[in-house]
């Protein structure tokens, strides 16, 4: 090859760090193609295909509306209950899917890991992208719902990508951490659905953060998804729902911590993946 000098390198025990971040860039095409593969494969051999990305959140929303809105009659801070629920369901579903997929991604790609070299970080990152695509599709439903209820968005909606980014880092950080544990301890395969289910109850998906008693609020804000979900609602309702900077700053700190710990732990364990997977 013409630029052979670029490919000179040394393999040495415990010194892969230097190439790693450069390799991550060099292997970006593999990242695109793995994300594309996961998206392409997701709805293969299903009859209604991509419609699943619409039906699942829609059905969940209807159940929530019936149970929390109609039966339990929880307050929805003055916006239509379906929009209230759906605005929260979007980031939560994204987080739950992205986290679960990223956590299992290393194991489901074990044949790749044991046969080819590439920065392993690509695999969980690519699987989070798949959930982002599902998110985009469900977002269209939200727009349709808003049109149905004649609910006009405001400029607040422009802040939405920021909250999505927070959700992205939250799921990737937690996903990286659990994925590396999962390689060695398969118990996490059973723990992940449990975390996701529990998370739904401690996050303001079916209810509003305003019903949480004041003395527990700081504790409640430690769940980083609280601010992401509240932020989503706030952006969609045009600032009409509860959202404050305390929860946002706590959430950003927790997510940053999660993400850093996730990446550092992943990098530490990464070298031994092949030997234990």
């Amino acid at each position, binding site marked *: *090859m013409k630029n*052979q000098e670029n*490919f*000179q*390198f*040394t*393999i*040495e*025990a*415990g010194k*892969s760090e230097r190439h790693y971040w450069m390799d991550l860039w060099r292997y970006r*095409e*593999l990242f695109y*193609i*793995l994300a594309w*593969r996961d998206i*392409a*494969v997701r709805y*293969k*051999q299903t009859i209604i295909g991509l419609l699943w990305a619409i039906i699942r959140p829609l059905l969940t929303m209807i159940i929530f509306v019936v149970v929390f809105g109609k039966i339990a009659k929880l307050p929805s801070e003055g916006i239509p209950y379906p929009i209230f629920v759906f605005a929260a369901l979007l980031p939560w579903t994204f987080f739950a899917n992205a986290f679960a997929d990223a956590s299992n991604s290393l194991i489901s790609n074990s*044949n*790749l*890991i*044991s*046969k*080819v*070299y*590439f920065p392993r970080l690509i695999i969980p990152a690519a699987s989070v992208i798949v959930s982002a695509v599902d998110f985009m599709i469900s977002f269209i439903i939200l727009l349709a719902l808003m049109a149905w209820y004649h609910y006009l968005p405001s400029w607040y909606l422009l802040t939405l990508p920021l909250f999505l980014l927070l959700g992205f880092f939250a799921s990737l950080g937690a996903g990286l951490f659990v994925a590396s544990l999962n*390689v*060695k*301890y*398969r*118990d996490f395969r059973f723990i992940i659905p449990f975390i996701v289910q529990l998370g739904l109850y401690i996050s303001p998906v079916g209810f509003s953060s305003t019903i949480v008693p004041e003395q527990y609020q700081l504790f409640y804000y430690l769940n980083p998804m609280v601010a992401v979900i509240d932020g989503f609602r706030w952006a969609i309702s045009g600032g009409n729902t509860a959202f404050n900077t305390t929860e946002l700053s706590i959430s950003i700190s927790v997510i940053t911590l999660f993400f850093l710990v996730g990446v550092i732990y992943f990098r530490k364990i990464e*070298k031994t993946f*092949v*030997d*234990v*997977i």
Partner: protein
Amino acid sequence: MGIAIKVENISKKYIIQHEKKSAHYETLSDSLIQGSKNIITRISHPFSHSKIEQQTQEEFWALKDINFEIEQGDRLGIIGRNGAGKSTLLKILSRITEPTSGKVHINGRIASLLEVGTGFHPELTGRENIFLNGAILGMSRAEVKTKFDEIVAFAEIEKFLDTPVKRYSSGMYVRLAFAVAAHLEPDILIVDEVLAVGDAQFQKKCLGKMEEVSKSRGRTVLFVSHQMGAIAQFCNKALLLDKGMIAQSGTVSHIINYYMNMSANNMSGFQAETTSRYKDIAIMKARSYDAEGCPAVNFVHNQEIVIEIICKINKWISGTEVRVAVRDSKRNVFTTDTELVMQNEAVSNELCAKVVIPAGVLRPEQYFFKLAIYLPNQLIFDLVDDALSITVVDGGSKYAASEGLDYGCVFVDCKWTINPSSNLIF
């Protein structure tokens, strides 16, 4: 020519967990069960606590202090028995796993082919898989695009390009996978055993393509195979690994010979258990030798194989026959037998039966010998399944390129005559 790869003092250690043989990974409950087991052992054997700790872990050096250099344009064959460390070495060179200590300098773009069709997704079409597999092997999308037609033509799957590969026959699948790999253009290519699958013709095509690329463009190739024929044909240098260390390196023919003689020292053949002593007629010992009379278990295809069987005769029954049945991994290849003759009963009650399998009959393969001593149609005195095992290696037969494929059970030296058809007399 510069140095393509320089390996300095590479070692790789694995920790073996003895109590967890069944699974590669641990679960929390494993640790819990292990804990309670230890408690039970401790209660029932209160004075032997040291034993418990001994069992848990053991270090295993898959590679130890490996040093070698490969020049650019070399085609290096790596041979060795199972567990010699070949795969570990390839995994380190292709950066899949890290060495425990040591350094490797690599000069050039490296691609490894440790498996055919790595990352192929059954749900995706042939076309999609070409791009996916290409990216996994390290090709850029632009590179795959320019070579796309060539790959499709090479694989001979034009018609099925848009069919999911799960509907492919295994032959088509392998051909497509090879085709992508054969069009890789790294500076250094690492290939592990992959040529063992696929039909003979296609295999030849792939070896040919690899050879062409390596010779004309000065590419370095590292090639692991159990097929000595393929190594002899393709490589210009070889490296022999044994128990994680380099046993020998040099020219291909030298290494293949060395490899074969290496195992000759540590085999003792078949030795009967003590119970056989009480039978009237029994097989006591058996061994394989080469033509010079040295014990051997590895043979080149054009060597004679001598089998010696020692029988004990406590009570002579005339008409007794001894039989050797030869089988390979799949079926019986042939059976040969002879009647035992008692020449002088007074001298000894042991007989030695020797049979020579002519050179150039058994094709390269591992063989197992079943030995029997019996009275035809009446009685079996003694029978030993898989008493001996030998390996025949291809030392450059006409069929070397088709090694590993089913081209027949044996070599037969058939007589051919070719005449112009007009001269034939009916």
